[in-house]
């Protein structure tokens, strides 16, 4: 019995040492929360499997996507009260709205074609002018309604952004085609989506006119909360997400969320998130 107990004690000590060494890499069993009201990501079942497969063996991070702002806000309240560490993948303008109690720290920014910003474009059918009334007009957007109205207000402050009826559609290209074919009067999309439509179907593209465009908007950002990120953990999660563009599995995930990769931007970029730019 004594020899058994001594053996068990030795094994326990070894296990404790190993856990302490490995924890900074595997981290706590924390989660990556995804909520991006700028796009209508609808493929959660596929996305969840892809993320979990990617994390498996590399990290203890789980993946928790949200499609509704209300549910995401409730999750943030839960994180605030529990103090549990987590990582968020969110729209850059949401960073400003994160409660200070979460101690949010930006880590990475999304990247498309080497850049980490994009512009939003307000489009209508040819013949419609920027000065026309919006009353009763239908606006198609793949972003959430609150985000859409916020962008409208930023882009055209003299207009009443509440006057339009927002039709939320699954993708930017749906919004553009809706305007081209009369299911909507206006569309709010990214400049990149307009370029894609121009390339794929110039006939439809030429049916549209640009009414307004935003300034450069940061792409989605990765943020740690509740002091998850001690230095080793921060570096570990940042490396894991930055490396997604280097593997086939990682690239598929990035394509599903409309990005080419994640990177740590230069100094000052994250300061924009607290400033005037959405």
């Amino acid at each position, binding site marked *: 019995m004594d020899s058994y107990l001594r053996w068990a004690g030795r094994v326990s000590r070894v296990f404790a040492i190993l856990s302490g060494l490995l924890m900074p890499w595997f981290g706590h069993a924390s989660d990556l929360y995804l909520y991006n009201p700028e*796009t209508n990501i*609808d*493929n959660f*079942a*596929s996305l969840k499997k892809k993320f979990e497969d990617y994390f498996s063996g590399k990290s203890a991070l789980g993946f928790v996507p949200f499609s509704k702002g209300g549910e995401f806000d409730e999750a943030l309240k839960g994180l605030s009260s529990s103090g549990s560490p987590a990582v968020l993948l969110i729209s850059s303008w949401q960073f400003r709205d994160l409660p200070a109690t979460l101690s949010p720290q930006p880590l990475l920014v999304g990247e498309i074609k080497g850049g980490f910003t994009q512009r939003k474009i307000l489009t209508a059918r040819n013949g419609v002018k920027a000065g026309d009334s919006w009353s*009763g007009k*239908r606006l*198609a957007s793949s972003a959430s309604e609150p985000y859409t109205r916020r962008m409208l207000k930023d882009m055209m402050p003299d207009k009443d952004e509440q006057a339009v*009826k927002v*039709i*939320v*559609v*699954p*993708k930017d*290209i*749906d*919004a553009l*085609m*809706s305007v*081209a*074919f*009369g*299911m*909507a009067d206006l569309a709010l999309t990214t400049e990149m989506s307009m370029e*894609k*439509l121009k390339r*794929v*179907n110039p*006939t*439809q593209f030429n049916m549209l006119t640009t009414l307004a465009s935003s300034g450069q908007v940061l792409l989605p950002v990765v943020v740690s909360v509740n002091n998850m990120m001690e230095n080793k953990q921060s570096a570990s999660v940042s490396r894991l997400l930055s490396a997604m563009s280097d593997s086939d599995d990682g690239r*598929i995930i990035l*394509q*599903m*969320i*409309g990005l080419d990769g994640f990177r740590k931007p230069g100094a000052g970029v994250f300061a924009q998130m607290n400033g005037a730019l959405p």
Partner: protein
Amino acid sequence: MNLSIRGQVIFSIIMLGMMLIMGGGVPAVAADNGHKVLIVNSNSQVEQYALMEKVFRESSTKLEHSTLDLESSGDPKTLIYRAIRDRQPDLIFCIGTRAHAMVGEVAPTEKRIFASVINWKRFPVGNVTFGISHELMSDMQFTMFRMVFKDISSIGILFDDKVNKEWVAEAAQAAQRAGMKLVSHPIAEEQALSNALDELLPKVDALWLIADPVVLASRESVELIFRKADAAHKPVLAYNDLFASNGASMVMTADLKTIAIQAASLAEEILLSNHLPSEPVQTPAGTSIVLNLRKIKEHNVPINPDALSLVNKILE
């Protein structure tokens, strides 16, 4: 009981009132702000119908809603009649073909909006009927094909000339507008399917499956189509999720949530702005795409790098 004359009169009035109310001769009196919608659901146990009702309600919060599920116990037409009589809706929202057909029979002059109705054109559309069709515009579909697939420029289609001739002709023009070519091959009977596939598949980059009674006459026909397309390494592009399990490389359908949002917008336009839409029936504004990556890899069909951001579901 020995009542005075006054008591008898009062008693009679009370009894008469109760009889009228119980007999249904007096419509329910309620605050009428002109914003009441009766949602007639063909079957709220069907997932897509339940989703449509939920999203419609969430997207039309300025309106007052009540629901009638046609699967409730009782004769559906009687249920509809009573619901309209008692609730006095300003508009009826019909979810599903059954609801639309029955409301049209029971109350043909009541303003209504329909959604989730297959082939809505077979029903009369008067000046009180509005709706969102269930079928995507061909132009939208070809644009999506171009968005997803890098190298597909010619798409083959089999169809019954008697049923789909005009639709296919219009689709061919839509293909041209999108910089693609639609290669059509009519067939008159199921027995001609095998030879038609042998002739068509070598000439095209992909096969487009549409709802056609001759082409999809039987399960054996469906299996034959996918077997021959697989052997020729040609992806099949389908219109219904059911074909994903057969091996369709891509399935494109109208997005149901968007249809419900469009219906809600239509309802608010009719009731709040007192304005009847110039186009009574809209086409769906949103697309839902399922991509079968396993089949795409099997057929070595390249997709655009950003195609996955357009996809709602990936099969592997």
